[in-house]
């Protein structure tokens, strides 16, 4: 399933790799792709992963989810 999260604080390539790393290292996540222009991360995951777990991983990498 595909889900998109809004992360307004992402502004550069380093943010991108941090957030992609935080999300893609979760079990059940197939891919995570940041769009810096849109300030979103698109996550492809199976149904074992709750959205709140993804939000938690992003927040624990230092970024607020809007």
């Amino acid at each position: 399933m595909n889900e998109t999260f809004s992360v307004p604080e992402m502004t550069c390539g380093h943010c991108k790799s941090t957030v992609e790393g935080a999300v893609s290292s979760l079990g059940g996540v197939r891919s995570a792709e940041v769009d810096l222009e849109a300030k979103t991360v698109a996550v492809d995951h199976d149904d074992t992963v709750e959205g709140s777990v993804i939000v938690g991983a992003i927040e624990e990498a230092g970024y607020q989810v809007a």
Partner: protein
Amino acid sequence: MTTSASDEGASSRQLDAQLRLGLYAPGCLPGYHLPYYAAADGGEFTRRGLDVELSDPEGGLDTLRALGQGRLDACITSVAHYLRALQEDGSVAARFALMIARRTHLAAFVVDTGDILAGSPTSLADLDGARLLGDERSSFTREYLTVMRAAGVSPAEIVGAPHGHDLRMLLRGDGDVIVEFLEMLPRFASVARRQDVAIRALPFFEVTPDVYGSGLLISDRLLDESPDVAALLISALRDAVFATRDNPRARVPALRERLRGVTEDRAIAAWRLSEQLIFDENGAMGPMTESGWNSTRAHFERVNGGSTPAIRMLSADEFV
């Protein structure tokens, strides 16, 4: 690029030039980049007739390649990236014009329990036996191991942690140390605070004070074709850094215009950390010297192996 001289006062030369200036990791080092947004937005660049477009093109090494290929006129780059590009490509068609962070940006981050007697680390030398959270192949990990050896601390166990996941693992106690830019402390501290944990940063410059951090690299093309513009860029940048030292808050609105997610407090807190890397004890910017570059290159070679081609820099009296 079109340049046309105009005389606005005898002492301040002014040109009308469009420049593309690449910034590495602007959002992650918001304080460090605080001088440049206001400079481009009616400040030191604008007043000299420099229309400067700021960008974070592709990050890291790609920024240097964009410079070599003429897609950028100048960039503010980490010294490690510059040396890596030299190693990989043999040369970069640009010269180092101004050292801004005369000390390395890297730091070790640890949980601060506040209990020194119980071993809460207050310096890198306290990290004997600490478990590093990181990717074994990453340059940050290699930097850490090299700096720890220089500190006389035995190499630590490495707990594999993907980039972006390491802070979470640190807070969970899966390891004791992570390595990041010193200026990440405000971001990390705010995450930790939500879990009632304090984070301390132990800057690598404690052990390697003579390793350069980052600065201004200008393309050969700009230096050769428009030395006047290059000279203005250097002096504007220097003035912007000092103006930020004198009044950082005045620079925040222009930064927030471009980096909307950054709060004023975080930008100022990060700038205070950058100041430790930029200024000496007298509030001056350190000079860029041959011997400084030699120790920086020697460190880089200890970290990454191989040898680095000679660096190219402007001498102190060129262009200024």
